[in-house]
């Protein structure tokens, strides 16, 4: 299943956040979205999962306009792990993950054995089976994040949108989560802060700057010192890691780059 944004523009009051942004995620492709704070990554994703409505342009899920599909059928095909986890009232972890089954349920239908199994699998895959009976509000930030991922897995959608999925997670769980998502072989688009994570897992990377796509391609093509300087305003040394074969970024703070300039 494919997901595509075509010429999407979006404004908040008078400020243009997105300028005719187009991105395309092919079937089973893992696409990363990188860019500095305020570049429009989250806003673009929110437009793609229908929380926000584009001012102009269209979003296509499975080659069809999402505004012309029912909320329920979209939810069966598209799962989202957003940045926010604002659960105010108290639900148990099991309750929350079970909610991922909602789009598959008819009005009168009760949870079946199959649903329980799917929820159980999702809990196991994200390593939170032991938290099942805990109340969500008592969890740590990282645990909450994994519950949200488990809920998206329980949704069993073909397309996954992730807004900074590794936020709040310790390094072990960051890698575990990204590994898990990679092994699911879904169509994935993720806004990613950590460029090394993006380099390691993405098939394609789009770079956003001030609401425009400035560059896209494989991690090797995109992650260059010149681009990092231009978009993020940092200097980085980029190597290919001998074991992973992926680009590996080492940021050099300004004080050292100045020194280097002075000595040469």
């Amino acid at each position, binding site marked *: 299943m494919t997901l595509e944004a075509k010429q999407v523009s979006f404004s908040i009051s008078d400020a243009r956040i997105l300028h005719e942004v187009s991105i395309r995620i092919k079937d089973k492709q893992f696409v990363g979205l990188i860019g500095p704070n305020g570049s429009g990554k989250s806003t673009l994703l929110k437009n793609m999962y229908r929380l926000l409505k584009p001012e102009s342009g269209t979003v296509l899920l499975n080659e069809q306009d999402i505004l012309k599909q029912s909320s329920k059928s979209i939810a069966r095909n598209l799962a989202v792990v957003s940045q926010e986890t604002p659960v*105010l009232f*108290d639900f148990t972890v099991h309750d929350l993950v079970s909610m991922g089954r909602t789009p598959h349920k008819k009005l009168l239908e009760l949870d079946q054995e199959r649903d329980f199994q799917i929820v159980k699998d999702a809990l196991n895959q994200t390593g939170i089976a032991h938290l099942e009976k805990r109340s969500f509000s008592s969890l740590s930030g990282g645990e909450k994040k994994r519950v949200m991922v488990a809920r998206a897995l329980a949704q069993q959608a073909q397309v996954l949108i992730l807004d900074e999925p590794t936020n709040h997670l310790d390094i072990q769980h960051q890698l575990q989560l990204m590994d898990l998502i990679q092994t699911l072989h879904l169509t994935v688009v993720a806004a990613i802060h950590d460029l090394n994570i993006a380099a390691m897992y993405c098939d394609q990377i789009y770079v956003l700057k001030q609401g425009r796509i400035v560059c896209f391609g494989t991690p090797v093509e995109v992650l260059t010192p010149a681009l990092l300087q231009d978009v993020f305003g940092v200097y980085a040394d980029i190597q290919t890691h001998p074991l992973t074969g992926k680009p590996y970024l080492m940021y050099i703070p300004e004080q050292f780059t100045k020194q280097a300039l002075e000595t040469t």
Partner: protein
Amino acid sequence: MNKKFMLLSMTLFLVLIISMTIAIMVGSVSVTPFYVWKVILSKIPIIQNSIEEDWSRSQEIIIWQIRAPRVLLAAIVGAGLAIAGAAIQALVRNSIAEPYILGISSGATVGATAVIILGAFSFLGVYALSVSAFLGSLTAMGLVFFLSRVGGRISVFRLLLSGMAVSFILSAISNFILMMSKQEGGMKAVMFWMLGSLAGAKWSNLLIPIIIFIVVFALLWLHYRSLNLLLLGEEAAVTLGVNLQQFRIQLILLVSLLTGVIVAVSGSIGFVGLIIPHIVRLIVGSNHKYVIPISALLGGIFLVWADALARILIAPEEMPIGIITAFCGGPFFIWLLRSNNYSFGEGD
């Protein structure tokens, strides 16, 4: 949870039946539970023949004509207000929302007084009161909802403030209508609408509240998944396939309808819609699969007792039921506020 829920609901149902029986027994003339059930069973078509009539005519009138409809109305009103409160709390994602605080009851009151005093909608006959109260509550709720939206989102502070403002304005309007009417006992009528009373219960005005309650209860319960998602927030609701706009409008209509017909028969009884859902969440958690039915049962039990107290506390005078619900509800709410392990929905 399912077993625990079954057990809990069965127990509460039993408590409700016992409470209703006791409430029919007490009063200026007390009757035994034995007679209460005999008289009630004698009204059921198939089994009535097997019951021997050994009670007096006055006992029958007290049990069947006076107390039974009133107790049943108390149960329906309590159950209805409780589920209306639970639904509104999910709708606005705020735990201090209830029909009374958000001005919905005041809206219904305006509609009801307009019918009774001014004779509005007289072409609708016996349905005039309910229709008019429904329109009143719908207008109030729509207004409050509209006033509290900022950039497409509901602001909690605005919600409460606009609820208060709308509520004050509408109460003023209905009180004005009542005071200006040249009818006897204008003040008494104001008291009735402001503090609520079930004294007007008759079999003939029970039908509409019962039907509307059953319909709204069934629809809310069927949509328990969507209500849960609504409680999680707009983002969760949208990404898990709830048509937010449509579902919100449906909820507003259902809650206004229920509140409208309840206020039309009982005036505005505060606190029930607020505290009952809280107690229920304390017991069963936030899942509406359990919150809706348990709220209905507990709300019913609570109001049956409140009404029984209203009748006997200062007999032969009658206490407005709103005084009792506020007296029980207020301190409980304060206790809830002070207890640390209860989430009011304010987040971390």
